[in-house]
């Protein structure tokens, strides 16, 4: 297909405009984190570093960050195991109900967060509470893992589709047992997909507000919950803004790492 020069330029301009639109709010967050006016009036009249020093000394924010990291790691670990197992099952086997399994895996992320949230809340209260398990980090991990499975599943399934079956066959012909093939042939080929899946699952868990609201209980505050609670308080808004700016700045690292580790688009598959 031969695109004319004009068509290429128009497409380029549209892409640039789209990216500008994507980044404008993020740049404003960065700028507002040093805006001396706590209500972020535009244009800023003076700059200040006060919000940054206040945010870095906020114990609430630090605890929330720690809780988010633990919840994200827990959910990612569960999702890695369950998602990979399901991807192997669906990819390597033909069985009755195969379509239903993919459907079931997509469902937790496709259904609205509020529905997932109140369903888990109702179930935890009727089933776990009598067992003496209260709301806390454990219930958050269960909730997050449920909708993170699909991310790992999609990444691993996409990669499995692309690994030539002849590789595993060659390995078997050369006398490798199934475990050896898995360890020396399949796993190295899957590693980028596992990494990308884990990264995206962690990101999803790290950002989740609604399901967390209904599964966390009073004592467990993840970073988004902390941010949400403090957004409503006008004098805390600049501190929230600093955290946001920090997250935006740090977000480049995992995305870059994912890109380096998986040179194909698998890093971007949801």
């Amino acid at each position: 297909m031969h695109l004319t020069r004009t068509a290429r330029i128009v497409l380029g301009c549209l892409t640039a405009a789209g990216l500008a639109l994507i980044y404008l709010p993020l740049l404003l967050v960065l700028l507002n984190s040093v805006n001396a006016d706590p209500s972020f009036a535009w244009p800023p009249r003076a700059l200040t570093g006060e919000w940054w020093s206040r945010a870095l000394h906020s114990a609430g924010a630090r605890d929330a960050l720690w809780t988010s990291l633990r919840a994200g790691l827990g959910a990612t670990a569960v999702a890695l195991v369950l998602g990979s197992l399901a991807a192997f099952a669906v990819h390597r086997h033909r069985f009755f109900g195969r379509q239903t399994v993919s459907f079931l895996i997509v469902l937790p992320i496709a259904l609205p967060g509020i529905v997932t949230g109140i369903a888990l809340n109702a179930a935890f209260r009727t089933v776990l509470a009598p067992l003496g398990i209260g709301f806390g980090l454990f219930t958050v991990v269960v909730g997050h893992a449920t909708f993170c499975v699909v991310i790992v599943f999609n990444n691993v399934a996409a990669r499995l589709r692309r690994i030539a079956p002849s590789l595993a066959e060659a390995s078997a012909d050369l006398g490798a047992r199934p475990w050896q093939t898995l360890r020396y042939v399949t796993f190295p080929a899957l590693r980028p997909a596992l990494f990308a899946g884990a990264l995206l699952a962690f990101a999803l868990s790290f950002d989740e507000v609604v399901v967390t609201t209904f599964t966390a209980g009073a004592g467990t505050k993840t970073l988004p919950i902390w941010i949400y609670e403090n957004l409503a308080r006008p004098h805390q808004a600049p501190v929230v803004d600093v955290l946001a700016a920090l997250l935006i700045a740090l977000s480049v690292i995992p995305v870059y790492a994912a890109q380096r580790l998986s040179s194909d688009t698998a890093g971007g598959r949801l």
Partner: protein
Amino acid sequence: MSATRHEPRARGRLAALLAPPLLWLVLAYLGSLAVLLLSAFWTTDPFTSDVVHTWTTDNFRDILTTPVYRTVALRTLGIAVAVTLLDALLALPMAFFMARVAAGRLRRALLVAVLTPLWAGYLVKAYAWRVMLGEHGIINAALAPLGLHGPGYGTAAVVLVLAYLWLPYMILPVHAALERLPAHQLEASADLGAGTVRTLRSVVAPAVRPALLAGSVFTFSLSLGDYLTVQIVGGRTQLLGNVIASQVTLDLPLAAALSAVPVALVVCYLAAVRRAGALDSL
């Protein structure tokens, strides 16, 4: 593949692979949904707000006969469709440029640029828009010299912000589909005398359609259940998510019955796009 043979060992391996994820999803997820659906048939004590376990279909009757719920449901559906269309419109040229026009380093840089905002956080981005759309925000400041006024807080702002939040979820699958499109198919099309428009219609469109549908699963269902963005930039606009959220503590059975509306919509939508093969390219 040896696995397609139904030998006992393959079946055992399949069972071992499937059991943990299925147990988790069926017990933790479908079980929870079942508990929720069941509680939709219960009722609430009007004085204490406690759930009373008497079987009744009143909640569903209330939802079907109360005009407010119908208005809110239709508004939510309309917003979800508008967000999906807006995202498809924005994503197509961007994904096309990223996958087929840009080359080498630029291509990778663009992909990173689209992925990075996914990490910036939902609340942060929604809140950034609240600041931008505010009375003294940058949008009004930019439009003032033209004698214009921004949309302020309301339904238009909700569509705008949701489209902004979910855009990467649409760009990524479309980009992946376009990138996978073999160049020789495009060349063959040109060799056979097809112009750009014909190639776009007959070669590119069929390849992109499942990806667009896959992206729309995210944009559509995420919009359908959102209630925080509406709280942040929606002004007085109410969506299904807000109504459910406000009923959870007051009247859980009613909230559960209301949840059946987005669940039914999403399940119908998933069933429809699954037939088009969208779930395979998610």
